[in-house]
């Protein structure tokens, strides 16, 4: 019996289409797996079902009745509970307060019953009691919990709502195998009580362990929906990739020549989200970082830039050990970092294009009496090379399109001529033409001897531009793809392989 049906759901954020045709039919007593690569629209679809994002079009039916949720509250009232991938916890509140937030047990006088709040929380926690680890309890502040413990709180919070339909968006991402086992037992008992479950996970083994049915999404569209028993892992990956196995079709004609000298080398790096990462970067090479989103790629880049601290390991630049405590250490050694998160790490929005371009140069000049003429001379060729479209140097950078803003950020670093460029998903939300321009420039830079580490959440970009790809999973490099073996299918397989 179909309890929830989504038809032709559409959503765009600004100029970016997040969901083009989201279809889903969810049956009662079913664990329905939703799978697809980064940015395929599955999280957006879940948020629309959960009422926290409003769709642009399409229809949603709950028990054959058309519904439209304007707020998460409305969806919750209709019996839909959502585990949010980015979690919906309040760090300043305790575990108990978080689990029952908005639904706190009340006394006869209508006040919050703190004793019952605590005991209800203890009951809720009990199944996880043996696997939850140290420092967990109803009175502990969520800000003091580790990542897996927070995830467990979010699970308990969703379960305590006792919703007819429960959506778990990557609920197992930071859990260990014992915790996952407990979680799956809870899901099975939900199933036995005829609840319907939408389950998003990137771990293939989990998909087959818990799923009844799988719906595959690709590029904002629902591609196929089949029973788990009637499919295989390779078949699912093939649907995610898009039918034909792509091998050499997308490879660029000639890989860049490598001079064979390591510019940057990392040995056994350990960090907040990094576990024993070692690699070396050749001169003039574009080294790609692949894998699912958030597996440590950004953390590696930010650590190499000195913006995140490392717990262990060593970094060598031209064979010499390098201490990276803060970004200025990296900059002084010719290492530049560019994030796709322009508004947060890139542009100075209200300042002029000129100021945005020269800020890297200014810090190298004498402190008093800037020579504007000299600065303009330095940045004019950079702007030209980037094919930057701009009204005047004095215009605020926020007047530019996203793509041109990103060019400004890149131009800032080109002006200081770095030896190593760290690119953290640099083309996020940029139009195709600008993307193309950017990658042409990157190739030119490589030819000039600049070495680049590129992380992109768009696998096709990675495959099309990197000379080698290190595939990340859970903070580790799980595979290195090169030459013939560097195809879309291999990349997905490595990324989705059971961890």
């Amino acid at each position: 019996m179909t309890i929830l049906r989504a038809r032709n759901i559409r959503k765009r954020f600004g100029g970016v289409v997040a969901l083009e045709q989201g279809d889903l039919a969810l049956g009662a007593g079913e664990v329905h797996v939703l799978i697809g690569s980064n940015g395929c629209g599955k999280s957006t679809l879940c948020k629309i079902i959960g009422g926290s994002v409003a769709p642009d079009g399409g229809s949603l039916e709950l028990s054959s009745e058309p519904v439209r949720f304007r707020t998460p509250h409305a969806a919750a009232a209709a019996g839909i509970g959502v585990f949010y991938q980015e979690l919906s916890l309040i760090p300043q509140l305790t575990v108990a307060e978080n689990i029952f937030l908005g639904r706190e047990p009340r006394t006869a006088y209508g006040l919050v019953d703190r004793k019952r709040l605590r005991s209800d929380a203890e009951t809720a926690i009990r199944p996880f009691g043996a696997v939850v680890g140290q420092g967990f309890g109803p009175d502990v502040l969520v800000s003091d919990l580790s990542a897996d413990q927070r995830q467990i709180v979010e699970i308990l919070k969703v379960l305590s709502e006792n919703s007819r339909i429960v959506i778990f968006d990557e609920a197992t991402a930071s859990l260990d195998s014992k915790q996952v086992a407990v979680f799956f037992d809870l899901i099975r008992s939900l199933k036995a009580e005829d609840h319907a479950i939408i389950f998003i996970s990137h771990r293939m083994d989990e998909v087959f362990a818990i799923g009844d049915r799988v719906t595959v999404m690709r590029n904002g569209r629902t591609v196929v929906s089949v029973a788990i028993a009637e499919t295989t892992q390779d078949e699912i990956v093939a649907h995610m990739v898009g039918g034909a196995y792509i091998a050499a079709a997308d490879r660029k004609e000639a890989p860049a020549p490598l001079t064979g000298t390591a510019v940057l080398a990392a040995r056994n790096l350990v960090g907040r989200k990094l576990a024993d990462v070692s690699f070396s970067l050749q001169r003039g090479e574009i080294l790609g970082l692949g894998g699912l989103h958030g597996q440590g790629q950004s953390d590696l880049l930010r650590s190499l830039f000195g913006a995140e601290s490392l717990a262990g390991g060593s970094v060598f630049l031209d064979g010499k050990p390098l201490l990276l405590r803060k970004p200025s250490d990296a900059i002084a050694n010719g290492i530049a970092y560019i994030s796709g998160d322009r508004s947060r790490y890139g542009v100075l929005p209200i300042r002029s294009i000129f100021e945005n371009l020269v800020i890297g140069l200014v810090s190298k000049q004498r402190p008093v009496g800037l020579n504007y003429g000299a600065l303009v001379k330095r940045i004019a060729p950079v702007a030209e090379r980037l094919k930057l479209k701009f009204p005047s140097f004095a215009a605020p950078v926020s007047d530019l399109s996203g793509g041109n803003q990103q060019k400004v950020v890149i131009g800032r670093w080109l002006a200081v001529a770095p030896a190593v460029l760290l690119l953290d998903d640099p083309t996020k939300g940029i139009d195709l033409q600008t993307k193309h321009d950017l990658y042409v420039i990157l190739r030119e830079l490589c030819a000039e001897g600049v070495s680049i580490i590129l992380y992109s959440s768009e696998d096709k970009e990675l495959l099309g531009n990197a000379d080698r790809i290190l595939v990340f999973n859970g903070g580790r490099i799980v595979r290195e793809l090169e030459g013939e073996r560097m195809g879309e299918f291999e990349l997905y397989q490595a990324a989705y392989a059971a961890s």
Partner: protein
Amino acid sequence: MTEHAKTAPSNHTSLTQRLRSFDLRRHTYLLSVVFFLILCGINIALQPSFLQPGVMVSNLSTFLPLILVSIGQTYVILASDIDLSVGSIVSLVNVATVSIIEGMGGTGGAIALGLTTGLGLGIAAGLFNGLCVALLRFQPIVTTFATGIIFAGLALWILPQAGKQVPATVWQTYGGSILGVQTVIWVLTLAVIFALVLARTRFHHALLATGGQMQSAFQTGLHVLRVRITAYALSGLFSALAALCLVGETASGDPLLGTGYTLSSISAVVLGGTALSGGIGGFIGSVFGAMILGLIDNVIFFARLPFEYQGLVQGLIVLLALAGGVFVSRR
């Protein structure tokens, strides 16, 4: 392994945990209590009569308006907003109430109407702030700064110069006692009970959640909008209550009466351990914070320090308290 063997260590951890879980971050007001007691000690040393009931009541009635405004300000700050219009609300309610009471001849009915209109006006002003900030998504600082100017302007329009009088019964009742207990103690007690009850409601949990992480609160299904507006309305209500106390205290109207209360109330809230970033703290700290600010004035007076030092010392103490708060949260 037996079931007992499994649970024993977890009991053990929960005990040590409970000891460790006595967390200053959950009792941020404690620091202000310590400060308060220290200042009381200094005050007693300088002014031996400090502990006499009469002196205590007189101190309390001096501190009460700021205590009330600070309680109201707490709710707004807990929601990670701020209310820079509280001082003007105090002025506006004060002159409106006095004008109504005098304009209608100072009868019992006039007094009742004046007081209720005053309270209603305070709530309305708070609601207006809340609607601008939460519904129209204006910046809280700029918005309440602007509405504060509007409220202050309205106060001056109603009563351009300090003056007018309320009937003797008003200030006599406020300065006297009801059922054998001083009126100011009644007011404080009722305000504290109100705040204590409020702290036990779902609204208060939602308030902390909203101030703590607004997006999470929204996704949890809380009515974030309603919570923020209610916080501003509470701020308006408590400011109005403070204004009515000032009517009882001064027995007249003054359009500039509330001027100092805005920044003092924010200082009091911060002194009381409530985080300006929202989500952490509570009204108890603000009560102590307001009394600390009052006691500092006392100490400066009785230590015969020049009056000009008052601002300097107040500022230093707020800085010291902030440093203490930073120390606690960065542990």
